[in-house]
C-alpha cells in the first residue's frame, strides 16, 4: 500500500556499523537475548498498527534493569535509536521500529516482584501483562483497575507508555491514576526511581509526565501500581435502542443525573452483529445501538442505581433492558465486548480510531462519522467507552487494495479532526504513535508543541528514544 506516514531517514552511520553493534550488544545481554537473524526480526517489524512495518537493526530482550541500563548507555554513546516495546499491541504504531533502531523488548521481564496488601499495591516488572496482575491478586479479593481490551496480552510497561484505559476507567481512572511509582532507565543508562509505595511522588510530577509519554522519556523497567478491593457485586445490563442518537443522549443524561456506573459501553448494529457472531453473548440483534451499563456495589445499591438508569433510558425510548441473571451471563456480556477488535478482524481488515469527545457531542459526532464513512463508500463498526466519550470507530477495508486502504486512512483522519473540532482530542487511550503524529497541529498550536518537545528533549537531548513518533517530523523544535 501507499505509505502516507513518513519515517525519519535511517542514520547511515548506524546502519553501516550493524555487525559491530551486534557484537557489542551480545556482550551486554545473556546468550539468546539478542535477536539478529532476518527472519527472527520479522515479528518485531510492526505492532497492532499493521499497515506499516520496518525491520529493526536488532532486538534485545533484557532480563534485568541493569541489562536495560547497559544497552541504553551503549546506544546513547553511539547515537543508536531505541524503540521500546512491550507486547507489541499498540494500535497507533507506537512500537513500530525503524531500520536504524534497536528494539528494546521488555517481554522477558515478567516477574511480579512484590504484592503488598497492607499498602494495597504491587510491584511488577514492566513485561508483566495487565491481566496477570489481577490474576495474581484476584483470589485474595483485589484487582488492578485499568482494563484495556488487550489486557490479556498487553504489558504494564506498554500501559504506562500509552497511559492505557479501558471499559472500567469511567469510575477507576486510567493508568496514570493508578500508578504509584516506576523504576526507569534514562537515555544515558542512569537508573532513577520516581514515586514508590507512598502517594504523590516528591518534587515535580515526573511520574505523571512519564505516564503516556510513549517511550520517549526513558525505559520503565518496574512499576508499583495500586490494587483495589473488589466490589461486593457487579452487574452488567444490556440496553437496546432504535437509534444511535437515542443511546448517545441516554448516556449524557445518565451522567448528567449524577449517576456514575462503573462502565458504559456502546455498540452500533454492525458491531453488535460482529461480536455476537463471534462470542454468542446473547446480544439483541433487532436494535440499532446497544449500551452495556455495569453497576457495582451491594445488591441494594445496584438495584437503586439500575432503577434510576432504567428510568432515564425509558425517556430515550429504550427497546430492550436485559439484566444478566448469572455470573456466567455477565462474563459472556463482557466477553462479547472485549473481543470486538478480534472479532472484527475475522471479517475484514480495519483501522481502529480513538478520538475522544465531550459527552454532549456524542450523538452529533456519531452522525457525522457515518456521513464521512458513507462519502468514502466504506463500512464502519462503532464500539466504544461511551461514559467517558472515548470513541472507537472501526473502519473496515481491504488491506490488499491500496485504494481502499488510502480511503480508510483518509476517512479516519477526518473523523479524528471531527473529534477535535467537537471539543475532544485525537486520542483517548491508544496514543499518537506514528498514526496521529501528523494531526498534532490540529489539536495544538506550534507553540504548544514546541513546549512539549522542549520538555521531551530535557530527557533525551539527541532524540534517540522512539524518534519518529508523536511529534510531526516537520517543525520539530
Amino acid at each position, binding site marked *: 500500500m501507499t505509505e502516507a506516514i513518513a519515517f525519519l531517514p535511517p542514520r547511515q552511520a548506524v546502519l553501516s556499523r550493524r555487525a559491530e553493534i551486534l557484537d557489542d550488544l551480545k556482550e551486554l545481554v545473556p546468550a539468546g537475548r539478542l535477536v539478529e537473524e532476518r527472519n527472527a526480526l520479522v515479528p518485531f517489524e510492526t505492532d497492532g498498527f499493521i499497515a506499516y512495518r520496518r525491520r529493526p537493526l536488532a532486538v534485545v530482550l533484557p532480563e534485568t534493569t541493569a541489562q536495560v541500563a547497559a544497552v541504553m548507555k551503549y546506544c546513547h554513546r553511539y547515537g543508536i535509536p531505541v524503540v521500546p516495546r512491550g507486547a507489541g499491541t499498540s494500535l497507533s504504531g507506537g512500537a513500530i521500529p525503524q531500520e536504524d533502531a534497536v528494539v528494546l523488548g521488555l517481554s522477558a521481564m515478567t516477574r511480579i516482584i512484590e504484592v503488598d496488601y497492607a499498602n494495597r499495591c504491587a510491584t511488577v516488572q514492566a513485561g508483566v501483562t495487565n491481566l496477570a496482575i489481577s490474576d495474581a491478586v484476584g483470589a485474595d479479593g483485589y484487582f488492578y483497575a485499568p482494563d484495556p481490551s488487550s489486557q490479556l496480552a498487553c504489558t504494564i510497561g506498554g500501559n504506562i507508555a500509552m497511559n492505557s484505559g479501558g471499559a472500567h476507567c469511567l469510575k477507576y481512572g486510567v493508568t*496514570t491514576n493508578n500508578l504509584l511509582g516506576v523504576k526507569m532507565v534514562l537515555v544515558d543508562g542512569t537508573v532513577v526511581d520516581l514515586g514508590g509505595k507512598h*502517594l504523590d511522588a*516528591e518534587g515535580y510530577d515526573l511520574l505523571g*509526565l512519564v505516564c503516556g509519554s510513549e517511550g520517549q522519556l526513558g525505559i520503565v523497567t518496574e512499576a508499583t501500581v495500586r490494587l483495589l478491593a473488589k466490589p461486593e457485586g457487579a452487574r452488567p445490563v444490556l440496553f437496546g435502542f432504535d437509534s444511535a442518537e437515542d443511546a448517545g443522549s441516554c448516556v449524557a443524561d445518565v451522567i448528567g443525573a449524577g449517576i456514575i456506573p462503573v462502565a458504559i459501553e456502546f455498540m452500533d448494529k454492525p458491531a453488535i452483529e460482529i461480536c455476537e457472531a463471534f462470542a454468542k453473548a446473547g446480544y439483541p440483534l433487532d436494535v440499532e445501538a446497544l449500551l452495556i451499563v455495569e453497576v457495582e456495589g451491594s445488591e441494594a445499591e445496584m438495584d437503586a442505581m439500575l432503577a434510576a438508569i432504567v428510568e432515564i433510558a425509558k425517556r430515550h425510548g429504550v427497546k430492550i433492558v436485559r439484566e444478566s441473571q448469572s455470573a456466567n451471563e455477565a462474563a459472556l456480556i463482557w466477553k462479547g465486548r472485549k473481543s470486538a477488535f478480534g472479532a472484527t478482524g475475522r471479517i475484514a481488515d480495519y483501522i481502529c480510531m480513538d478520538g475522544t469527545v465531550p459527552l454532549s457531542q456524542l450523538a452529533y459526532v456519531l452522525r457525522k462519522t457515518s456521513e464521512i464513512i458513507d462519502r468514502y463508500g466504506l463500512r464502519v463498526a462503532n464500539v466504544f467507552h461511551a461514559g467517558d466519550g472515548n470513541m472507537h470507530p472501526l473502519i473496515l477495508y481491504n488491506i490488499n487494495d491500496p485504494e481502499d486502504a488510502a480511503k480508510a486512512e483518509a476517512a479516519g483522519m477526518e473523523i479524528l479532526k471531527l473529534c477535535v473540532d467537537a471539543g475532544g482530542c485525537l486520542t483517548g487511550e491508544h496514543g499518537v504513535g506514528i498514526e496521529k503524529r501528523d494531526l498534532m497541529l490540529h489539536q495544538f498550536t506550534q507553540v504548544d508543541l514546541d513546549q512539549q518537545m522542549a520538555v521531551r528533549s530535557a530527557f533525551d537531548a539527541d532524540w534517540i528514544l522512539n524518534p519518529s513518533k508523536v511529534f510531526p517530523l516537520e517543525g520539530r523544535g
Partner: protein
Amino acid sequence: MLTPSTETEAAELIRDHATRKTPLQIRGGGTRSGFGNAVSADAVLSSTAITGIIEYNPAEMVMTARAGTPVAEIEAALAENGQGMAFEPMDHRGAMGTSGTPTIGGLFAVNSSGPRRFTAGAARDHLLGVRFVNGAGDVVKAGGKVMKNVTGLDLVKLLAGSYGTMGFLTQVTFKVLPVPKTAATIVISGLEDENAMKALAAALSLSVEVSGAAHLPESVRGRFIGGKLPEGAATVMRLEGLEASVAVRAEKLMSAMAGLGPINRLDADDTKALWTEIRDVTPYGDGTARPLWRVSMPPSEAWKLVAGLRLRAGIDAYYDWQGGLVWMRMEADHEADVLRHGIRSLGGGHATLVRAAPEIRAKVPTFEPLSPAVALLSGRVRAKLDPHGIFNPGLMA
C-alpha cells in the same frame, strides 16, 4: 504587586521580565504564602484579577475557570448542581495563619488534596487541561476538556504541584463529580497506632468503599469537632453514597470491626465537620509557627516513624490516608534530619515542612531532597519551561 486582568497582559509582563531576567514571585490569593523555600523576587505577579468561570456543563462533569477565580465561587457553582471537587482540596489558611482568598489556580499549583485522595486521586488526577504562560512569555495550552486524553506529553501533571515554578497558570479545566448523597463515620476507640493501622488496612480490604481512613491519637482526638469524639484514640472510617447503601455498608463495616474496641457511628453532619477538620489540619491551626510537617509514606510504615520520633522529640501527630499521610507538629525543634533519615530508613516517602518560623525556614529545605539524578532531571525540565529561572526562583530547589 502586578495583577494583570487578562492572559495577554500577563504574557506581556512575563515576556518583559524574561527579557530583563528579573524574577517574579508567582501567587494566587496568597493563602499559602510563606510556603516553600524563600524566594527573592523583584515583584509579585498575582492571578487574582484573572477571574471567572468560563464553561461549566454539569452533564459533562467538567468546569473551566480562569486561574484567579475564588475557590468559594467555584464551590458555590458546583453545589448548585450537587457536584464538587472529589479530591477535597485543603484550605491552608488555618494551618498557615494566612488570610486572603484561595484561588482555583493556586489550588492546582500546589496539588492540594484532602482525605478522599487515597481513593479519588489527587488534584492532579482531576485536572484535565491548563493554559499557562511559560517563563519565556509564551501562552501554552496543554491537555483538554475531556476525561480521557493521551495526546502528546502530559504537561498538565507537570504544572500541577509545581508551585508556580514552571508556569503562570491562567486557566484550568477540571473534572467534577456528584457530591455523595449522604455520609457516615465509624469510630473505633482506644486503639494504639499500630493496631489502628491494621484496622484501617483491614477495612480497606473490604468491599464497603471506605472513602476516608484516619487515626486520631488520644493527644489530638479531643481537638476535633468540639471534643465530641468518644474517649480514647479515634480510628475513623468514612462511608459515602446513597442513604440505603451507606446504612448497609456501615453495618457490614461495624460487624467486621467488632471486638477491636468500642464502636460508634457519626451522622452526616458530624461526618462533614470531622473530615473538613482532618483535611484542614484544624488542631494545629493554633496561631503559632511551631513546625508543621506533612509526611507521605507507605501506610504500613508511617506509624513506625512516628513511634521512633516520639522517643526522641516532642511531637504531636495524626494520620490520614489509611495512615500514609502524617500531619506532625513539633513542640520545639524542627527535627528535619531525624525525620528525613527515618523516612529513608523505612523504605521511602517524603516530608514537607508546611509551616515554621522564618529562621527555621531559612535553613531547612521545605521539600524532600531528591536523589542527585532526579534533581538533575528536574532542573533540566524546569529550564525548558522557565529558561531564565524567573518564576519563584529557589522555592522548590
